[in-house]
């Protein structure tokens, strides 16, 4: 292992060693004092975050080009680690309240984050495949963590079966790409494509890329590969759902951007119509079905589907070289906006959730405005941000996305985006109306770390909109090289 190898893998290595150690240490922590495990998990995430930030701005490549460290990976790793920290913060009280306190939860969470970081850094299709599995397998288990509650077990099984199915597509896609180019390294694929000697193999390459796209569409929950999302999001323990809706989606998009932006820039033009249809369908179906939901977890699940559509919009615009850098930057910005808002909204849901999946109807939010003004105000901010209204991060995110789409010449898609955002206002604002206009006596949980998460994400949703766009262009530049 050379020095460059070590530099590239350092944060990953730190986290994975910490996760293994945590697994052992947890054995000596008695039941009922699992707060220590949570604290140690958070310390590991903070340490890794420190290492990642210390490496910011550095570019390196290790393990024969299989692993990269660049602005793109640093940016996403901070996002994953941040959502991991929030995940631990909200999980601690929730697990205690729902009588699910088991230390393995935190180790599995750390392993899943390791997989996500590996995904952001991978520059070889083999590593991308293994990273996909490393992030998914702990999530299958975590989704079923509330066993023997039947809905949680079913969520785990459904997520597992659909996940394994999508893995099949990714593997076959990788096979065909290998068949066309003779290599799995993204850098070497670029070389082969640049040489232009593919001949009939180019068809294999297109089919392979399409199959990889299908596989990851399952992961990011794009229509028509979204069927699992509402069931899994509803059945899984809510902290897992929050983490899944943020981390797994961001990791899926990370892989899509690495593969399609780095390796197949020439293919992007061929796939533009496909991506266009995928984005439009996802925005449309996600928002339309969300209207009819009465359960807040299912509503947020469809909302997360819809937001995958908005991010896909950026990948469509990538087909136009003039806005390529902007498109990646706006996708990254929107991922951050979605992550912060989504985590906040889920934390409010957790505050109201009662054992046995009670307290999760939208009607259960009635009267929250009077009973708990702070929580209601935070939820209002998140709903506004989801819709894309001022004064929130969501507005800036959508503005960047729509601007990229319009500048890239995809005006039709931008119009669909605006129209579906208007539709979404109906169901997001219905939650706000229910909280303030209707009578009810909701009992909100006053757990310290949960409230902390809600307050932090609400503040971030308002404050982060002033982030300089240059930061995102920097991260986007890294992946385009």
């Amino acid at each position: 292992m050379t020095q460059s190898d070590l530099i590239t893998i350092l944060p990953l290595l730190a986290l994975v060693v910490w996760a293994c150690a945590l697994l052992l240490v947890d054995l000596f922590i008695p039941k009922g004092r699992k707060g220590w495990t949570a604290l140690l998990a958070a310390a590991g995430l903070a340490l890794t975050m420190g290492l990642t930030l210390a490496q910011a701005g550095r570019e390196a490549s290790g393990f024969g080009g299989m692993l990269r460290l660049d602005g793109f990976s640093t940016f996403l790793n901070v996002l994953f680690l941040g959502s991991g920290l929030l995940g631990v913060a909200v999980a601690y009280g929730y697990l205690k309240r729902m009588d699910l306190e088991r230390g393995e939860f935190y180790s599995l969470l750390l392993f899943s984050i390791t997989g996500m970081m590996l995904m952001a850094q991978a520059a070889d299709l083999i590593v991308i495949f293994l990273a996909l599995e490393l992030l998914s397998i702990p999530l299958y288990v975590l989704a079923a963590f509330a066993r023997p509650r039947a809905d949680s077990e079913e969520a785990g099984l459904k997520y597992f079966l659909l996940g394994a199915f999508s893995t099949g597509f990714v593997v076959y896609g990788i096979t065909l790409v290998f068949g066309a180019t003779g290599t799995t390294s993204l850098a070497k694929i670029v070389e082969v494509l640049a040489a232009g000697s593919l001949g009939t193999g180019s068809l294999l390459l297109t089919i392979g890329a399409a199959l990889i796209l299908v596989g990851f569409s399952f992961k990011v929950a794009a229509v028509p590969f979204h069927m699992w999302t509402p069931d899994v999001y509803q059945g899984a323990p809510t902290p897992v759902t929050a983490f899944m809706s943020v981390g797994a989606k961001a990791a899926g998009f990370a892989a899509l951007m690495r593969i399609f932006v780095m390796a197949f820039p020439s293919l992007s033009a061929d796939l533009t119509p496909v991506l266009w249809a995928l984005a439009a369908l996802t925005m449309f179906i996600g928002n339309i079905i969300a209207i009819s939901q009465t359960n807040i977890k299912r509503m947020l699940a469809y909302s997360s589907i819809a937001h995958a559509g908005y991010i896909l919009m950026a990948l469509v615009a990538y087909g136009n070289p003039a806005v390529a850098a902007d498109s990646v930057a706006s996708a990254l910005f929107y991922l951050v906006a979605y992550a912060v808002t989504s985590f906040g909204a889920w934390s409010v849901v957790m505050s109201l959730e009662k054992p046995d999946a009670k307290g999760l109807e939208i009607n259960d939010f009635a009267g929250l405005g009077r009973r708990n003004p702070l929580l209601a105000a935070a939820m209002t901010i998140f709903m506004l941000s989801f819709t894309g209204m001022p004064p929130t991060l969501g507005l800036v995110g959508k503005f960047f996305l729509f601007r990229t789409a319009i500048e890239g010449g995809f005006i039709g898609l931008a119009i669909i985006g605006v129209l579906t955002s208007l539709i979404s206002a109906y169901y997001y604002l219905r939650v706000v109306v229910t909280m303030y206009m209707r009578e009810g006596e909701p009992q909100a949980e006053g757990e310290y770390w949960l409230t902390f998460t809600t307050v932090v994400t609400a503040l971030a949703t308002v404050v982060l909109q002033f982030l300089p766009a240059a930061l995102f262009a920097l991260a986007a530049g890294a992946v385009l090289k």
Partner: protein
Amino acid sequence: MDLTLILFIILAVTAIATALGLLISRNAVYAALFLVMNFACVAIFYLLLGAPFIAMAQVTVYAGAIMVLFLFVIMLLGAEKLPKGDVLPVQRPLAIGAAVILLAEAVILLVQRFQSTAMLQAPGTVENSMDSLREMSGLLFTEYLLPFEVTSILLLVAMVGAIVLTKQEKGTRG
């Protein structure tokens, strides 16, 4: 027609037939055994393709360990008899769509066979000997060290996950 081609056709037909058996079987044990047969055929293909190590791994890991685990679970649960059921109405168009796309791909490949001679050229020679195994294991610990280590973590995670999912907690039903 030379012998290899005859062997290929026999094996290919068996592979397709056993896959079909898995698709339509009404008994989970039969389905698992069809799959074992299918994996065995594929293992012989690996031998034909000059990959003896993969062929052995296929037999021991896939046809051996994995499928025995499947059979074990089927019998443990007593779930071998499957109720008579129809194809799901919602999924039928989806299934047909997927099948059409994938078969189209197969047909395109067949057509290419007549157009492209590149695909028909004599394949690169991979020695069917122990040297290849040595070279492969060398690669595993040098160039492919990272994926190799990742798989070890993956197996650890799977182990922890399986225990978390099936361990009976004291005082809870499970």
